[in-house]
């Protein structure tokens, strides 16, 4: 069995204010997670804005140094003391960001990113690098010929997001951290990318950490789900179980607030009864 993702006592504290009025914010407050599986898994991290889900993702991506604690991916320490080398880390964990237009520089063509990832991270140069780029692009439904020489603004949002998925796939990472990857895509086409994640999980044997505020898509693709609130994981378990029989009050609150198509909300009066 492999430990796909593990966190132990992960904390991140931000200090705000001056000497006289110091405020500390616990963005991550003792995060413990342990996901063990032989097969690749999709783990969803859900919660409202400010719950710390993006901070946790950034900590695993090493973009944020934790105040205390450690995290492991595939049995290796990725953050905290005793972490692996930078290049080894980048071969193992790759990110996909929310807005592909921010992820790629406007002044460089998209294919330079793909080739650089192949050369510097996967160590594939020349024809081998070209093959790796080709393979990654075709697995997300893009043609090399359609991508080469184009700047980000020449792509549609969905295409560019798929190009950024292809970039993350080039080194065949063990884990892809996707932070709100579909929230910029129109609802009608979101499922195309969501299904793609599911297919890539099987094809590349890659696990995903899917960070989202959308519980319905989390239910649809994930094997495990962690619900975060105020820097803590309040509920964790198999996705279908957690979302069909939630135990924690916060999960119940989130679920009852989703505007569904199946039943209307319970109406409790919002207006104070004073006055006409």
């Amino acid at each position: 069995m492999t430990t796909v993702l593990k966190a132990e006592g992960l904390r991140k504290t931000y200090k705000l204010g001056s000497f006289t009025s110091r405020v500390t914010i616990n963005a991550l407050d003792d995060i413990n997670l342990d996901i063990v599986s032989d097969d690749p898994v999709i783990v969803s991290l859900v919660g409202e804005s400010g719950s710390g889900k993006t901070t946790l993702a950034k900590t695993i991506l090493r973009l944020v140094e934790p105040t205390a604690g450690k995290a492991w991916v595939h049995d290796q320490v990725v953050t905290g003391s005793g972490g692996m080398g930078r290049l080894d880390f980048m071969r193992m964990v790759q990110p996909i960001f929310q807005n592909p237009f921010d992820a790629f520089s406007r002044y460089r063509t998209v294919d330079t990113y793909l080739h650089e990832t192949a050369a510097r991270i996967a160590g594939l140069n020349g024809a081998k690098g070209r093959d790796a780029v080709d393979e990654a692009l075709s697995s997300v439904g893009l043609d090399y010929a359609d991508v080469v020489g184009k700047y980000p603004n020449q792509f549609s949002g969905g295409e560019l997001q798929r190009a950024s998925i292809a970039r993350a796939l080039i080194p065949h990472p063990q884990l892809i951290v996707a932070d709100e990857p579909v929230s910029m895509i129109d609802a009608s086409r979101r499922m195309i990318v969501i299904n793609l994640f599911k297919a890539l999980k099987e094809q590349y044997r890659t696990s995903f950490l899917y960070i989202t505020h959308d519980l319905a898509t989390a239910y649809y693709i994930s094997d495990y789900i962690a619900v975060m609130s105020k820097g803590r994981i309040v509920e964790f378990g198999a996705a279908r179980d957690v979302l069909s029989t939630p135990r924690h009050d916060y999960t119940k609150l989130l679920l009852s607030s989703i505007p569904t198509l199946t039943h209307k909300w319970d109406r409790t009066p919002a207006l104070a009864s004073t006055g006409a």
Partner: protein
Amino acid sequence: MIQLKNVVAEYTTKRGRMKAVDGVDLVIPDGVIVGIAGESGCGKSTLMKVLYGDLGFPLSLASGSVDYGFTNDKGQPVTDANVQREWFRHVSIIPQSSMSSLNPVIRIREQFVDFPATSKDKKATLAKVREFVQRIGLPPESIDAYPHQLSGGMRQRIMVALATFLEPEVILADEPTTALDVVVQKEILLLLLELQEKMRNTIIFVSHDMGVHYQLTHQMLIMYAGKAVEHGPTEEIFRAPLHPYTLLLTSALPTIGDDRARQGLPGSPPSLWDPPKGCRFAPRCPLATEKCRTEEPPLVEVRPGHSSACHHIDRIPQLQADLAKAPSLDDLDEARLLAQVQENLRREHEIDATADAAPPSEVDRPEIPSEVADTVAPAGGER
């Protein structure tokens, strides 16, 4: 009763004129909540601007008219020509971004006093405002704050308070809760619903979230590429739609507790610079035939109060039944899933290739005409 007659709204750009709303006829009875839905770039926000009378370069009303069905102080009927004078008193708006709509350098109470119709007695007005704000669940002191001191949810409540304080006949809400978390979204929407039930105003509600429409609206207008494709009672729109686009839009998203595999709707809407001759949805439509590609279907009333613009309404129940039979995601083996994903990506590519080199961006951005967008966007390569 609000009457829209053949409304055509155009953006003037360097490349020419583009019709973002292309001939919408609509009658909205008093006291109902009407939802407008569609993908980004379908014209829903532009139609909202027309309804608010917020017309100015580069947007203009090329033809058609809006009649609001009530008269102003001088006894003249309010139309698109003079609606600006009725803002807040009779027609108000709840915008998406409360932060960019409230004046950041004055206190919120000053913004209430700024209303054109508020009486000269500032003290009495403020007392009323405090009482009103308290009723909608905010502390009365919150109007003494500056906008940045309040949370996003509180600010959006203030926007609702501003829009409803003078009990206007018509409230326009353009994605009012898109920037908020689900818990706060539910609170704001239920508040709006309750205020509407008390004041009986007409609310026109734009959102891309079909779930929000289902919870809130009585009637819906579905738009596609500048055209109205379906209009009817909300319950029927969801249970027995009369347009394939509506059906695919509502079945594109997963629901908790439902394990059926979802396919989404591949491809982008057509370019509005060069819309297809026939039905604009034909390139993405699974029911499309030769007739759809050559002849534009008119919007006709099919059931009482429910109209649709489609040549193949009779085939929609079959499509709906087929979609309902989709296999569970867990039953799909790896090979079939891969094949389906690849097929969808191929179709997406194919449709986008025919849709013009410049598809309307699917990224959720405000609809800005390309001229403005070009000045914002960096100097990239030429298309």
